[in-house]
């Protein structure tokens, strides 16, 4: 049986972090200095750099600030930016969490706000430390997956191994999320066949077509030079490899960033904005997607890599699964699981899948991942625009996304 930190809203977290959030880039330095001075791995920096309002960013920040791994938050505002800091504060307060707001222009500048921030974090951290751990069911666990720095080994070792782990987690009743429709271009047909209803299948095809059109306008697919150097040749080849992370469970629905899946099962996160391409690339780097998965409630993320990504994340632990045996040796200190053993005949796909599944349970129970130990706490949030999900996207739920 898992254990989680019980929150006032009934959700349970596998970590108990205090966030310091800057609400515009102009407040970033002050927030960072507060976090650096405190130097506690469970006091973490997040933020949104823009001064212009954005409904997507506001929704993601509200979802992140009330994520079950979060015990409390200190908001750092310059004062004149358009971010709805009062709305965010009210959302956090309504969730039963301690929240404090510092407005640099009112507190009296950089030095005064850093000082006030240190005291505010101490108060929030003290309140957050009162959270109690209670039994947590597998049905309450949300696990996400992403791939980054893929190569020709990703799709034959680490990704299908994660798919095996996903199948076990879904069978246990957990919620599993996979994403990046731009990296599913070419898989829409086979993916639609796994949808729990034909209507959902058509939504899946439509959301991959949206991704394809968006990327064509941008001039690039979701394909970096290192992918080609690692043996991948085309977007659809990368996609087929990435797709295997989803395993073989039926697909229960589509969510968008900040939507919480209504129940256990396998869900696709649609990360590509709706409407005319406006704010640039859908996800400028892997951590932008990790943030969106966390905003959908992910307690932890399974990150597969062939070329060798080193990232972790704020808020939710990242378990890194290395696909390529050469990379696993070269970046050994950055990897949690070596799926490259499959290529060398040292382990089977099923064995590595079981190892990933067991590691998920251990990390949920408190074991620190490699990226947590190394201090990785990446966080990036940019501008986007989404329409709400359609009625066919969550066919098993009358109430839609949570």
């Amino acid at each position, binding site marked *: 049986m898992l254990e989680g930190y019980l929150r006032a809203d009934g959700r349970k977290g596998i970590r108990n972090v205090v966030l310091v959030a800057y609400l515009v880039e102009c407040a970033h330095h002050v927030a960072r200095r507060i976090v650096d001075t405190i130097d506690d791995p469970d006091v973490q920096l997040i933020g949104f750099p823009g001064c212009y309002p954005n409904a997507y960013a506001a929704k993601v920040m509200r979802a992140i600030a009330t994520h079950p791994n979060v015990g409390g938050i200190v908001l750092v505002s310059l004062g004149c930016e358009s971010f709805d800091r009062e709305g965010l504060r009210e959302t956090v307060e309504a969730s039963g969490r301690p929240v404090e707001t510092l407005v640099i222009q009112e507190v009296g500048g950089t030095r005064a706000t850093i000082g006030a921030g240190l005291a505010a974090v101490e108060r929030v951290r003290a309140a957050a430390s009162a959270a109690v751990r209670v039994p947590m069911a597998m049905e309450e666990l949300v696990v996400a997956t992403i791939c980054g720095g893929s190569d020709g080994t990703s799709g034959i070792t680490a990704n299908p191994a994660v798919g095996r782990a996903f199948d076990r987690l879904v069978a246990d009743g957990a919620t599993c999320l996979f994403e990046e429709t731009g990296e599913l271009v070419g898989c829409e047909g086979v993916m639609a066949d796994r949808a729990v209803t034909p209507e959902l299948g058509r939504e899946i095809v439509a959301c991959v077509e949206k991704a394809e059109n968006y*990327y064509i306008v941008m001039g690039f*697919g979701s394909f970096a030079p290192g992918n080609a150097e690692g043996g*991948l*040749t*085309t*977007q659809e080849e990368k996609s087929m490899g990435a797709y295997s992370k989803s395993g073989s469970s039926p697909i229960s629905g589509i969510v968008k960033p900040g939507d919480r899946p209504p129940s256990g099962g396998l869900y696709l996160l649609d990360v590509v904005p709706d409407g005319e391409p406006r704010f640039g690339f859908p996800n400028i780097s892997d951590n932008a997607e990790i943030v969106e998965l966390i905003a959908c409630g992910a307690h932890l993320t399974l990150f597969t890599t062939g070329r060798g990504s080193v990232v972790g994340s704020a808020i939710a632990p990242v378990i890194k699964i290395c696909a390529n045996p*050469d990379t696993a040796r070269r970046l050994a200190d950055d990897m949690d699981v070596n799926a490259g053993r499959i*290529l060398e005949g040292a382990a089977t796909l099923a064995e590595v899948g079981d190892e990933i599944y067991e590691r998920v349970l251990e990390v949920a129970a408190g074991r620190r991942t490699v990226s947590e130990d190394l201090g990785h706490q990446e966080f990036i949030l940019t501008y986007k625009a989404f329409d709400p999900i359609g009625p066919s996207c969550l066919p098993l739920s009358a109430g839609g996304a949570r």
Partner: protein
Amino acid sequence: MSVLSLILLHPDDNVLVCVAAVGAGEAMSIDGEVLAAPEAVAVGHKVARRALAVGDKVMKYGAPIGSMTRPVARGGWIHVHNMKSDYIATHTRQTIHEEGH
């Protein structure tokens, strides 16, 4: 050892994936037949299971992953120089540089 360097992911595939580096001229096995590698192939890269012509669909994981732009002999390396996406162009470091992005 190098004879076991290629794997078939799906019975419908016309490419094999290299799982241990093969040097030019080294022995490799395709469908039970051992032949000398016409060129070096790195881990994660693809070789032709049979000769392919321009326009042929490249099949991997049992699914089309693009089309040939140049012919390739059995055992030859298949990559950006002789195949392309059927969806969206692939950019390498070289093309990004040349196009001034």
